[in-house]
């Protein structure tokens, strides 16, 4: 050990730490603080101050919240939001879980097709679904017309789709795929040996279902339920098209901002709606985490599919019925886009005019939409990737906090994000309201979780030894990231980015408060065209939108195989 005493002093150059990672990795943190944490803080502050008053302690008031006790419109909106969200969760679970079971466990043809068509409702913009149901079940809707002809004989009539029932019906169909896909995955991936061992110990089919299968997939159903609940709470498009006099919290926020430019009041409503989501999330975590199990054995085998003829017939009929109903909007929209109007039983006035005038009326909005979606998804890819890298690889002390912050927009209704951004950046030193910038920022804030999750998943699967081995070989952090990490997580980045792009193209609930004449997007134009009652043109524009999104998702599936469509579980 005498060697230690006559050490050579080491030059500073060699002991110098590599600071590049810290510099690069601070980018996403700064972004989150400036454009998420800060606006949310301002927005929360404004909720406790009256409109037009300065944000100081002396002006503190609960008046903005008092309306929930005094105004019947507020009370009704709150009640509506509750009723709608809970009923939609219930319906999607009741309809979606059996479908997942059938496709996973019953031998039947066209499984791939059912799975592919099954996700169509999510990639169709929700408000497009809503207005297609107006065509089918509205005052002069074709299905309602036909049904009433029959019901009329016994003196009954089907009410038009407007109002609570219509919202619940359309939302259930829109969000059905979440439950379907998640329960399908769960039914398929639980270890069949567990059920087989129960069978060998003498348990019957219903007992196995009750004591083994359902408890094991409960966490997945819980996850699907909360996903649907969050989306149902935050959805703007469907109640905006179908609500009529029935307001829900997102449309109420829109009303406050659009009608009165009352960001303070809107913030208060936003707080309430986020609080509800958070309470639901906590309850779900409590219920599910007590029932989350880890599979102990590593040995697995394939499920034996049900082959009984009766089971097969029931399964096929059930799936076809659900698919036909949930694909009705797409079929309706495509048909409608070729006609002038659709009153009574058949559409009338075949025309290509709806498409021919698109370049004239929509070239600007299409260009805007593509510009915004492209730039926002590329920037989101950058931020999301870096953020995922930080939390997965650097594991700083506050990793949990970063993770939590990034995932926050996931539970924030889109319109709440816009209220927060408007609160912080529509007055004072930084005023970017009405610009492309505020839209891009809002898109980035909302969609960072998509890329983050997707890349974080790739990183968890990537053996850390690969990067360590590169460092040991003498490569710096940046060299390692460029040559090893980045190429290997690229599929995850691309998946997340395409998903982001596809969803941003149809974004309505954030855009609705932030757009200006200059920055109007395609979904906004469709929404306004529907409001004007011009269903033919709205349909043609919607077809354009749906086809573009569909091609994107299809390309992603080719690129990434099966994992592509499953990443929609995220969004």
């Amino acid at each position, binding site marked *: *050990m005498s*060697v*230690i005493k*006559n*050490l*050579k002093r*080491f030059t500073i150059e*060699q*002991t110098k*730490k*590599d600071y590049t990672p810290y510099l690069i990795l601070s980018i996403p943190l700064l972004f989150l603080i400036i454009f998420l944490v800060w606006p949310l803080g301002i927005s929360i502050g404004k909720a406790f101050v009256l409109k037009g008053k300065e944000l100081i302690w002396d002006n503190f008031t609960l008046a903005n919240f008092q309306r929930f006790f005094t105004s019947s419109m507020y009370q009704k909106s709150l009640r509506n939001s509750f009723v709608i969200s809970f009923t939609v969760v219930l319906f999607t679970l009741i309809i979606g879980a059996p479908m997942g079971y059938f496709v996973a466990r019953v031998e039947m043809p066209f499984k791939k097709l059912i799975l592919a068509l099954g996700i169509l409702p999510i990639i169709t913009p929700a408000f497009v679904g809503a207005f297609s149901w107006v065509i089918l079940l509205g005052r002069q809707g074709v299905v309602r017309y036909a049904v009433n002809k029959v019901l009329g004989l016994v003196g009954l009539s089907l009410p038009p789709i407007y109002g609570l029932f219509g919202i619940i019906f359309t939302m259930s169909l829109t969000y059905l795929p979440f439950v379907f896909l998640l329960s399908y995955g769960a039914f398929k991936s639980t270890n069949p040996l567990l059920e087989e061992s129960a069978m060998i110990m003498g348990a019957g089919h219903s007992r196995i279902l009750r004591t083994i299968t359902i408890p094991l997939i409960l966490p997945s159903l819980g996850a699907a339920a909360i996903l649907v609940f969050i989306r149902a709470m935050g959805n703007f498009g469907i109640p905006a098209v179908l609500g009529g006099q029935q307001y829900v919290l997102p449309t109420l926020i829109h009303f406050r901002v659009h009608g009165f430019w009352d960001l303070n009041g809107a913030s208060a409503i936003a707080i309430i709606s986020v609080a509800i989501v958070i309470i639901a999330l906590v309850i779900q975590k409590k219920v599910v985490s007590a029932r989350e199990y880890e599979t102990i054995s590593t040995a697995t085998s394939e499920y034996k599919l049900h082959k009984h003829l009766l089971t097969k017939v029931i399964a096929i009929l059930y799936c076809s019925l659900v698919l036909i109903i949930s694909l009705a909007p797409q079929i309706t929209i495509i048909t409608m886009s070729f006609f002038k109007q659709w009153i009574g039983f058949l559409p009338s006035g075949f025309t290509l005019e709806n498409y021919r005038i698109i370049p004239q009326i929509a070239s600007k909005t299409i260009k805007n939409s593509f510009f915004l979606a492209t730039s926002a998804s590329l920037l989101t890819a950058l931020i999301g990737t870096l953020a995922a890298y930080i939390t997965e690889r650097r594991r700083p002390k506050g990793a949990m906090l970063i993770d939590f912050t990034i995932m926050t927009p996931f539970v924030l209704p889109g319109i709440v994000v816009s209220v927060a951004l408007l609160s912080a950046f529509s007055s004072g030193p930084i005023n970017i309201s009405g610009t492309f910038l505020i839209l891009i920022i809002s898109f980035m804030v909302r969609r960072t979780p998509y890329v983050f999750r997707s890349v974080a998943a790739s990183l968890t699967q990537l*053996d850390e*030894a*690969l990067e*360590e*081995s*590169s*460092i*040991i*070989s*003498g*490569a*710096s*952090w940046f*060299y390692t990231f460029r*040559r*090893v990490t980045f*190429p*290997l997580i690229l599929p995850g980045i691309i998946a997340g980015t395409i998903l982001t792009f596809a969803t941003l193209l149809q974004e309505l609930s954030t855009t609705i408060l932030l757009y200006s004449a200059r920055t109007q997007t395609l979904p906004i134009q469709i929404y306004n065209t529907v409001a004007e009652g011009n269903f033919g043109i709205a349909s043609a524009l919607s077809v354009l939108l749906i086809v573009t999104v569909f091609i994107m998702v299809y390309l992603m599936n080719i690129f990434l195989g099966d994992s592509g469509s499953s990443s929609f579980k995220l969004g």
Partner: protein
Amino acid sequence: MIYPKNIIYKDVVKKFEGKREKVTALKGVSFEINQGELFCLLGPSGCGKTTLLRISAGLESLTSGQIFYGEKDITSIPPFRRNIGMVFQSFALYPHMNIFENVAYGLRVRKKPEDFIKKKVTEIMELVGLPDVLRRNPSPTALSGGQQQRIAIARALVYDPEILFLDEPLASLDAKLRRYMRAEIRRIQKATNITTIYVTHDQEEAMAIGDRLAIMNTGLVEQIGSSDKIYHQPENMFVANFIGKMNFFPATILEIQGNHCKVKLEYNQKMMDLFFETNQIRTRKINQGEKVILGSRPESLTINKNDGKNLLTGRIQIIQNLGKIVRYEVSLLQDAKSKLIEVDMEKKLAGVKEGDEVCINFRKKSTLLFPGKKVL
């Protein structure tokens, strides 16, 4: 050319801060690894051997203490400035690069010229015994486990590092390949004469491959020495029990005469004479009247048919024929709760079957002596 470096650890302490508790993975470790030595870190899982390896390579920082490569204090030098090589348990071959690029990686990092890289890679692939693989140059996923292992070693050695780290390199291979590859690793290590640290939890592997071994337990080094020394002269009960099987018998020393001792067994208060090798009595400072633990390897015990006059009597529970030897697991009649005693015999005793009573005898010279009253 590799210039082997020795490694010196000085009071190395590593604490991990978990969510709820702090875990001290290394509790002050000091020792030296010689130049060109193949040194094994061996111990049960959680003993700190992997932590020590990762700290030595710079992948983890240390809480306190110092590490030297030769005369250089490298404690705070990041791993990529250390000129070291490492083979990971999972091999960590880059799936997006072909074999040549995988092996050449460290040379590319060092910005070596193309023809130099080609020459070096070809040389190293010959050393690891895969000269033909470069002709097809496939992706690493197309290779077998053993070939992947060789590529991982080639990649770690190609840029002439000063030290090679091997983190359970054979754990993901099947048993037969493991025995073959460990000989290969020793051949390659001796051919390059690079100072090598080899982590494993497999004691047979460590004994077979290492010039010297460090036996670790709960963050401390229990003993360092050659395989032979550790097997025949374990310094404490942990090492004795961890390396191979050791039968323990609590006893009291009655009389000491040079290397001869008269001891009394706790089980049945019977006395016997023992001869201890290598002055165990003096080095362990054992006095007359003191309570000790006697340790005996299975091959240092014998059994024969119970004739009623013997020291220890037991009942055979299980007989396993292991080919070269026959192993008897015997429960003591006097103490039914004690652990089963293992006895290895060269031949099967005629007419003795499971359930029979037998007596156990000590071979005089090879009994070990540990201070203390309780069996570990």
